[in-house]
């Protein structure tokens, strides 16, 4: 669909890019990158300002020319964040550009990739719903339910099978299926409420997050709590029923196999959304609900289907969290569902885009751990960046304006007026779908 548009676009950059990618994809890419850079800049200022107000005995950084002392060094924060997330491949402050002793199979990169794997599933979960025009803010709750379903299923089945690798494969398969069913059911509830009672899914999914967290907590606390555990958690699932770490150190909680499964899911979902008739129905009802219904799409059923699929993906994210990261269900579940919103929006709600977006956000999450080890800056910084990135991606007009003023990004931005037409043209999946 991009060819006739591209021919009419006068910009050089657009003409260069058009043969390779859909122009709106290129534009989204530029906006995503710009949004990340801008949120990093705002985060920089935030670290600087809070470093001025916070109290410390010695200044970590002194601003050139002014002599003002700051408690936090914003440059160091970002160096630690990005370099640390990859396991310090770059030598900073030492001779040479690269660390000679660096290998890709280090602990820090393992932690980053572990986060990436989990974010792939939650990002896909949010993206599928978005493509159908639904805001699934409930991936967090679906992940909680899916994780519990997985843990309980594996724990219940494990004694029935002889311990060993074959049982491990069976348990991982059945456990993941249980997670998908659990998350799918939890996602189907807001889907049905939206389709048949017109209840806004943003609010119902957020409420269901609270319900899921509380109900799962009580179930584990009262019924499934491990003997003698100091925290609210189930027993550990057997070692052989967990994803095994290949190449990476076991303490990184990362299994290459799980990442490969995630990538396979990305491919499958891309095919489903772009090349199947059900996927087509899903996209058209996301872009133009009325037109889709006129074309014979059962809008209500599509809504329920999309939310069920979205919930199932969130549930599988929970399964992977149990079977790869924790080895058990425990009450303090990280905010993976909310991070999934950022990943999806950063990816332009495109399944293929979820991979780089999840890796990028995985770096931020992995780097946050390093920030916690090596600096005094609170690791909550990454949660701020999460919100800022969404905000900036949501305002493409801002970047187009900057592009017009500077004349740089004009090519990628194309003409401003193309935005709405593209949405209506069936391309779909824009953040404003």
């Amino acid at each position, binding site marked *: 669909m991009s060819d006739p548009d591209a021919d009419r676009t006068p910009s050089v950059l657009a003409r260069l890019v058009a043969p390779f990618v859909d122009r709106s994809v290129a534009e989204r890419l530029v906006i995503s990158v710009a949004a990340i850079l801008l949120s990093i800049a705002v985060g920089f200022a935030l670290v600087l300002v809070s470093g001025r107000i916070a109290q410390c005995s010695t200044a970590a950084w002194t601003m050139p020319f002014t002599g003002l002392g700051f408690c936090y060094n914003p440059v160091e924060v970002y160096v630690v964040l990005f370099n640390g997330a990859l396991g310090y491949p770059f030598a900073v402050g030492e001779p040479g550009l690269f660390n000679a002793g660096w290998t890709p199979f280090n602990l820090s990169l393992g932690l980053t990739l572990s986060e990436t794997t989990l974010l792939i599933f939650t990002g896909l979960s949010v993206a599928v719903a978005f493509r159908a025009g639904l805001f699934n803010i409930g991936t967090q709750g679906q992940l909680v339910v899916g994780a519990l379903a997985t843990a309980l299923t594996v724990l219940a089945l494990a004694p029935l099978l002889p311990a060993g690798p074959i049982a491990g494969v069976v348990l991982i398969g059945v456990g993941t299926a249980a997670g998908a069913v659990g998350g799918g059911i939890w996602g189907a509830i807001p889907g049905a*409420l939206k389709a048949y009672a017109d209840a806004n899914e*943003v609010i119902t999914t957020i409420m269901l997050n609270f319900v899921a967290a509380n109900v799962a907590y009580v179930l584990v606390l009262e019924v499934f709590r491990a003997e003698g555990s100091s925290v609210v958690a189930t027993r550990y699932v057997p070692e052989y029923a967990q994803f095994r770490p290949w190449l990476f150190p076991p303490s990184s909680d990362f299994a290459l196999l799980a990442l490969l499964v995630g990538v396979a899911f990305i491919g499958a979902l891309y095919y489903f959304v772009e090349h199947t008739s059900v996927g087509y129905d899903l996209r058209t009802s996301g872009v133009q609900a009325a037109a889709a219904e006129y074309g014979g799409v059962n809008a209500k059923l599509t809504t329920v289907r999309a939310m069920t699929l979205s919930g199932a993906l969130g549930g599988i994210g929970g399964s992977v969290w149990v079977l790869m990261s924790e080895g058990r269900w425990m009450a303090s579940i990280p905010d993976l569902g909310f991070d999934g919103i950022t990943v999806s929006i950063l990816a332009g709600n495109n399944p293929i885009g979820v991979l780089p977006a999840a890796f990028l956000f995985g770096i931020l999450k992995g780097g946050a751990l390093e920030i916690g080890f090596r600096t005094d800056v609170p690791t909550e910084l990454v949660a701020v960046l999460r919100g800022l990135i969404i905000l900036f991606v949501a305002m493409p007009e801002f970047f187009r304006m900057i592009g017009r003023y500077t004349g740089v990004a004009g090519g990628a931005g194309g003409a401003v007026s193309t935005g709405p037409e593209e949405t209506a043209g069936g391309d779909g999946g824009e953040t*404003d779908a």
Partner: protein
Amino acid sequence: MRNPLSPTAVLGGVIESDYLRSLLVGTVGAVVLLGVLGIAFPDSVFGDFSGIVFSTSTGASTARLAAPIVLAGLGGIFAEKSGVINIGLEGLLIISAFISVYAASVVGVGNTVLGIPALGVAFLAGIAASTFLAAVFAVVCIEFKADQIIAGLAVWLIALGLAPFMSTVFFGGVNTPNLGVSVGWHYSATLVLLATVGSWWLLNQTAFGKHLRAAGENPKALDTVGVSVSKVRYAGVLLSGVLSGVGGSALALSIGQFVGSGETMVQGKGFIAIVAYLFGNYNPIGTLGAGVLFAGLDAMQIRLQQLGYAVPDTLVQTIPYVVVIVVLALVGRTQIPEAAGEHYETED
């Protein structure tokens, strides 16, 4: 598309026409029934329940918990009536809750600034922070034509990250230390009532209210008579910031602490506020009723825990959330302003 004789449509009609009356009659009826049953069978579960509902401490915590829900709900009405759906109310509550506690601790309880006592400064700081964030949201939505839902979610997530971040910077943990003083429930109740009456007057009795409704229903008409749609929408969103700021500050100062763990102390009250004004059908008085209902449920669960029924606390805490979902499912589609959620391009 919708069949006018379908059950939902019929139900919707009844709800819209006699909306406030049925809400009032239903609530009052339920409360009276509970009271009668409680007097008749004082030793039964009804006795306990009516004891809870009619106790002063439940009333006090209802007032305390209703403040953020009702005030943010009133703010949501102004924003949405003007045509901007503000789903970031939760974020405005979170940021004002933190900043008010921070300001109070910086000034020091018992000190004054320009003759204003510390808690007064705290309120003003909370309102300023919330209004600032609302202004950012307004610029992003109105100037940069962002999708309102996504921008609202961003406002929520930014506040959800920023408040614990700042709390860790200033106080060394996501929860602030307790200030040692708190604002009494009378203040919360007074603020809620004043804001409700004020909002009703502003919406229904002033030219500004007319402009606000026109900006949401028919922005072109408003533009034609020479009133700037953007300015009216800015005013609507900023008002939602001011009101949410009062609500968030009142919530935190009524305890004297900001709790930033998990979903922070606000715990979805901003989203419940949205349901409250939808339930109240954009009427401030209906919003007050719905907000008090939700807050009352929350207050009751606190009391229920103390009575020691063999139900785990955490399960009782979910009751308000489940009720919100049920209410939303029953209310279904309300009369949302025609042009809400859409960007308006001024025609020259």
